[in-house]
Each structure stands twice: as structure tokens, then as C-alpha cells.
């Protein structure tokens, strides 16, 4: 994914006052002459999202999109600062850190919108008509096909625990996961895991004991696995894993069959957005049949979760899916105290990082 960066300007200085943070990538899509601009700030890699935006723009010659790609924590910080300062920033904010989006909505940063498309969303994928879940992506275990023998492929978290249990385990120091301090998504997955089952406590303990690695982002994790630096990566976003898997035979992907977290990237329209109309149009497009097809093609609505289309054969029973619903209870994840406690435990696990 990093190669995308080479194509595009990088590290542009922010026009916002929050100079310490910067977007990763900026790209302009659509005709330069268009009189309307839609500013999208997203955690989604532009390479993945570009076809979706391009399809949206096809029918709208008078609109162009200013796309900024951000890390989830930075995006959260910036959006919150914009909201507090009542300053128009993005027209659309899309983040995989849905707990951060829930917090933004909770702090009255989002504009409400209701349409036929949003009405069709299940209740778990929207909150207050201000936040909508637009994708469906599983958190998967990624492994290196060449270095991990078939017998060792962890189908569940218990398998992973078993792999790490022997004192002389070959996987010691070769298992990676998100650095939850750097990645909002990683924190959300870890937090959801902790809520979901006690297994995660044991897993965390195992990670700590075997000297597992934590790193910043999906791309790093997957690349590390492909290159053999890591044998297994835990809690990787399935959409990225799958897109790499299509080009790179070395990468294998497992949906844990004890339970699989399913993330829906959340979209909101900031209250002070300048082009709110374009934003809601974009939302309606994403929720429409065409938009959903484009998202599926971009693997953002994961085909492995679709039983109807389940050509992959890796499809899982819906009962093991644990969607991370858009609910105010995600606020707990962002509580300062709780986060500190959680982080303290995490740091004890990964003292080296």
C-alpha cells in the first residue's frame, strides 16, 4: 500500500491550526473545472477507495473530490478540533475507528440526515441518523503460506494460543498485531476482543511472554507477513488482507471460527460541513445498490461474509460473526481512564515497543 504514497504528494502542511498532525495522502479526483468540491477525509487507503469515488463522480460532472487519507487517531483529533472550533473542515469523514466516530457524534459534531437509503440500514449500522456503517470487513488472522505448515494454521484463537504455548515455539517473536497506541483501529479491535471473550487476556499474556511484535498499520502487518518477517499477524483488517492476497500468493487469510469481529467503517457528515448536500449525496450513493457493488468490488464489503456469493469457500457461519455495532457503548473505549488502564496492561505486554 505504501507505494501509493509515491504517486501522490505527501505530508502536505495542514491549513488547520493543528500543525502537529498531517494527512498521509491527498488526491484530487474529478474534473478540475467543476464548481463544487467535496472534501472527504478517510482512513481508507485511496488506492482501495478510488474506484468507488470515481464511480460516484461519473454521474456528477460538476463535482470534484478532494480526498485526504488520514491515520484514524489523527483524523479523530482533527475532526474533534474542527467541531470544537465550529470550523468547516471535511464534508465527509469516514473512519475505521468507529468508537472515535461515536464519540464525535456524541459530542454533537455530526449533522443528521434521513433518506430512503439510510432507512434501509439495520439499526446496528446507524446511530441517531448521524452516523452510518458503510462497509463490512472482518478482522482476520493472516499467515505466511510458505513458512507456516498447514497443520499449524490457526483456525481459532485457541489454535494461536497453542502455537505460542511451547517454550521453544517457532512462532515466538514472529507474531504481529496492531500497535494500539498508534492505531485507533487496532485499539478498537483489541478492546472489542477484550469485551468479547476472556481468550484475549490469555492471548495478550502469550504475546507478552513470546515477545510478539506490534506495529502501526494494516499495510505493514501484511507486508511483513508476505515478506516472512512475521509468520502470523493477528486482527488484520480483512479487506486489505484480501486485496494483497489476490496479488501475492504468500499471504493466507483465516476468519477465526470461535468468533470473527466485523467492522463497519463509519461515515458522518460534520455539522459545519460546507458541502453537506454533496456529502449526503455521496452517502446515499454508498448505500445504494451501485455503491454497495463498488464497495464489494473494492473488498470493503467483504465477499467472504456474503453467504450468497460465498465463492471463496472460506465463508463463516453467521453465528460466529460479531459486528461492532454503532452504539454509544463504544464510548467506553475512548474513556481516558479506561484507555489508560488498558494501555498500561498493553505496555506491560509489549515492553519493547
Amino acid at each position, binding site marked *: 500500500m505504501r507505494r501509493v504514497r509515491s504517486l501522490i504528494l505527501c505530508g502536505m502542511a495542514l491549513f488547520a491550526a493543528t500543525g502537529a498532525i498531517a494527512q498521509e495522502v491527498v488526491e484530487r479526483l474529478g474534473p478540475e473545472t467543476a464548481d463544487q468540491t467535496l472534501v472527504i477525509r478517510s482512513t481508507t487507503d485511496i488506492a482501495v477507495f478510488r474506484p468507488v469515488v470515481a464511480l460516484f463522480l461519473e454521474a456528477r460532472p460538476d463535482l470534484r473530490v478532494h480526498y485526504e487519507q488520514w491515520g484514524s487517531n489523527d483524523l479523530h483529533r482533527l475532526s474533534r478540533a474542527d467541531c470544537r472550533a465550529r470550523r468547516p473542515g471535511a464534508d465527509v469523514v469516514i473512519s475505521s475507528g468507529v468508537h472515535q466516530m461515536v464519540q464525535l*457524534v*456524541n*459530542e*454533537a459534531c455530526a449533522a443528521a440526515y434521513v433518506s430512503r437509503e439510510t432507512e434501509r440500514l439495520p*439499526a446496528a449500522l446507524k*446511530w*441517531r*441518523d448521524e452516523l452510518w456503517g458503510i462497509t463490512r470487513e472482518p478482522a482476520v488472522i493472516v499467515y505466511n503460506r510458505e513458512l507456516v505448515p498447514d497443520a499449524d494454521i490457526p483456525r481459532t484463537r485457541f489454535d494461536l494460543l497453542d502455537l505460542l504455548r511451547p517454550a521453544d515455539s517457532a512462532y515466538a517473536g514472529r507474531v504481529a498485531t496492531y500497535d494500539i497506541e498508534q492505531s485507533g483501529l487496532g485499539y478498537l479491535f483489541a478492546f472489542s476482543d477484550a*469485551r468479547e471473550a476472556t481468550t484475549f487476556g490469555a492471548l495478550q499474556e502469550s504475546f507478552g511472554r513470546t515477545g510478539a511484535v506490534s506495529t502501526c498499520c494494516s499495510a505493514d502487518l501484511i507486508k511483513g507477513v508476505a515478506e516472512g518477517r512475521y509468520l502470523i499477524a493477528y486482527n488484520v483488517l480483512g479487506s486489505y488482507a484480501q486485496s494483497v492476497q489476490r496479488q501475492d500468493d504468500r499471504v493466507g487469510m483465516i476468519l477465526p471460527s470461535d468468533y470473527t469481529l466485523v467492522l463497519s467503517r463509519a461515515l458522518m457528515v460534520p455539522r459545519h460541513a460546507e458541502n453537506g448536500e454533496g456529502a449526503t449525496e455521496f452517502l446515499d450513493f454508498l448505500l445504494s445498490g451501485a455503491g454497495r457493488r463498488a464497495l464489494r468490488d473494492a473488498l470493503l464489503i467483504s465477499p467472504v461474509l456474503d453467504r450468497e456469493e460465498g465463492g471463496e469457500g472460506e465463508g463463516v457461519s453467521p453465528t460466529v460473526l460479531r459486528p461492532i455495532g454503532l*452504539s*454509544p*457503548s463504544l*464510548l*467506553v473505549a475512548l*474513556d*481516558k*481512564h*479506561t484507555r489508560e*488502564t488498558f494501555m498500561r496492561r498493553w505496555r506491560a505486554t509489549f515492553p519493547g515497543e
Partner: protein
Amino acid sequence: MASRVHGASASSLTARVALGVALLLVIGGVIVAAAAFAYGREGARSAYDRLLLGAASDIASAITVQDGKPVLDLPVSAFELLALAPDDRIGYRIIGPDGATLTGYDEIALPSGRRGTRNGFFDGDFFGEPARFAVVSKRFAERTFTGTVVVVVGQTLRARTEMAYDITRKALYVLAASGLAMALLAAVVVRAVFRPLNAIAAGLTSRDPHDLTPLDTSVPRETAVMIQALNGFMARLDRQMGTMRHLISDTAHQLRTPVAALRAQADLFAEETDPGRRERIASRLQARSTSLGHLLDQLLSQALVIHRGDAARRERIDLRAIALDVFEEGDHAVLYPQAEIALDLGNRPVEILGDEPSLKEAVKNLLSNALKHGRPPVRMGTTLDAGRASIWVLDAGCGPDAETLAGLGKRFAGPSQSRQSSSGLGLAIAHSVAGSFGGELVLSAAEGGFRAALTFPAVLPTPAGDAE
């Protein structure tokens, strides 16, 4: 508009009932809606306040002390509890003993008036939206940490409002249903109430015009009043028609004989050539026609009396004034110029409820009977005795014999008696006048002669004693 409504309600009982029911429903509806909304709001408030309190207590109980510091692992269950109001934003703030925020939103301000550590609820504001907050405090008395930690948990009001509206809406559905039921019931009741009226109307319509027999009174009590009034009215009509019929047949009967006699005399007169006889016939003709005129007078006065007896208004009348008037008008003086009449009137008023012309007519008849059939001296007077007021005529004769007297009584009672003589007619008039005003005609032998008296229930004189 108002006048049209008034007009409609005046013209139709159904419209009145409909208007009444509609008013009742509208006013009731407004009251019930207001009450339901108040109740709904109160219900929603208490329900969601408990939710808040539960969440706050949940959070408070999760606070522990580690290394001399309060440590909090925010319980997800508390937030899941709060998420039962799925669309409401959640605010919370945990305040340490020094007043500093341990975690949560600094923006939530405790109301300044309250003592910070007291548990309870307050209304506030959360990022520009009205919200309700619960306060729960937890005291610590550890070796390393002493003091009170205050947990404030709040929520915006969407779910509460929604619930209040929901309760109100449901109450209004129930109200609408019961309103409909009431309207239907009212329609049924109105129909049921008016059924007897319709039956009466149908009965009256299909009646023979001459049928004045009473209507069936086996109807609801409320309509019975009307039926009774109707029956009373018809009875009066029947009585009047009866008397008119009698009057006409009597009159025809009474006039036929004298008119026939007159014609016979007139024929005789035309055929007679002897002047002496013609003279006698002529004088007989004169006498007959005079007597016929007299009879006619009486018949007409009887008609008058009978008419007034039922129709005229009753007034307070002093019988002494009647006696005096009859005496002063002096009709008798024309017929019986030689007669002498003595008046016997007391000092005190003798008052009854009656009709002056009818009474006068009756007394005149009694007087002329006495003058015609009795023996002088004739006396006329009034007495007031044991609540009975009487006006009487007394003559020195012995009156008709007992058989005639009995016959007279029978004749008044029977409806279709022929009255051959004008004296019988006079007594009939007196009798019916007495009957009209609740009195009676008393014919009796008195000391020194025969007495014909009309006695009535006396009316006590007014305190002022307006004698004349």
C-alpha cells in the same frame, strides 16, 4: 355559525345530544390528552431516571483505589444500560475529592446550588442539547485514599420524549376508541329514548279523529308526563265536545216543541175569523214567543257557562259582589215587576275561585226559578260556614216535591236528558257552573221554605282583607 348551531340544537334533540357528546368528547379529549402527556412524561422520566441511576451506580461500584489513586475501569454494562435509549447521547463525568475531573466530560457542570456530594438528579445541557443527569457518590476511607468520588451520568432526552409521546398517542387511541363507542352508544340511547315518542306520534296519527279516549300510559316515566298532559287535554276536549253535543241536541229538542206550538197557533190564527178568538190566539202567540225568547236566553247562557267553565281563568271572587250585581242588574224586575227581593249579605267577604259571568248566570237562574215557581218573599244571600262558601236563594214555598227533586238530580247526572222546562234548564246551568268550580248545587227544604244554594270550597281572604 353560533346561531346555526343554536338553531340546529333547538330544532333537533338528536343534534343537541350530538353537540353535547361532541363537546364532552372534545373537552374530555383535551383533558385526557394533557393528563396522558403529563403522565407519559412523568413515567418516561422516572423510567429513564432509574436507568441513569443504575448506570451511575454501576460506574461508581467499578471505582477502586490502587496505589492511593482512584482507578476506574469503565464498565461496558453501564453504557449498554444507557444504550437502551438507543438514540440518546451519553455524558459522564467522574469527579475526585479535590473537585478535579478524573475522567469524562469537563463540560458537564454540576448545578451550583447543590451540595456536590448529594445523590439525585438534575436537568442540564449536553453539547447544546437538553439532558438529564444522575449523581451518585462513593465514599472511600482507605489508608491511602480518603474522600468522596462523585459520578455524574447523563443522557439527552430523545427516548424520554419519544416514550412520553408514545404513551400519549396510545392514550389518545384508547380515547378515540372510547369516544367512538360513546358516540355509538349515544346514538343507540337517543333512538331508544325517542322510540316511545315515535310510537305515541304513530298512535296519534293513526287515530280516528273522534277518538278522544286516553292514550296508553305504559310508557317511560319521562314521557308519561307528556302522555298525561295529552290525556288531560283530550279529556277536556272530550268533555267540551260532549257538552256541546248535549247542548245542541237539548237546544234542538227544547226549541222544537215551542216552535211547533207557535206554528200551530199561527195556523189557528190564520184560519180563525172570530175576532174575539183571534184576540185570544194573538195574546197566546205573544206569551209563547216571550217564553221562547226566554228559553233562548237561557240556552245561550248555558252555552256560555259551559264554555267558560272549561275555558275561563279562575279568579278570586267575592260571592257578595255576585249577589249584589245580580240584584242591581235587575233582570228579574223586568219579568216579575211585582216581586220583592231581600238581600242577606254578611260583613265578611265570602271568596271563592271562579268565573264571574258564569256565577252570575247561575245565580240569575236560581233567582228567576224562585220568582217563577216559589212563593214570595224571596231572599238572596251568602254564607261562609266551615270552609264552605255558599250563595243561595230562599223562597217561602215548599219547593218541588221529592219525586221531582230526585228526578232533577238524576237529570243532571245523565247526559242525554230532555229538559222540558226552562226551570230544569236553569237548574242544569247552576249545576254545571257549581261543578266547574269544584262546588255543588244543594236543593233543600229550609226553615220557612225552599233553598237552592251553590256551595264552593272557600278561599281564605288575603290578610289585607280586601272586602269590596
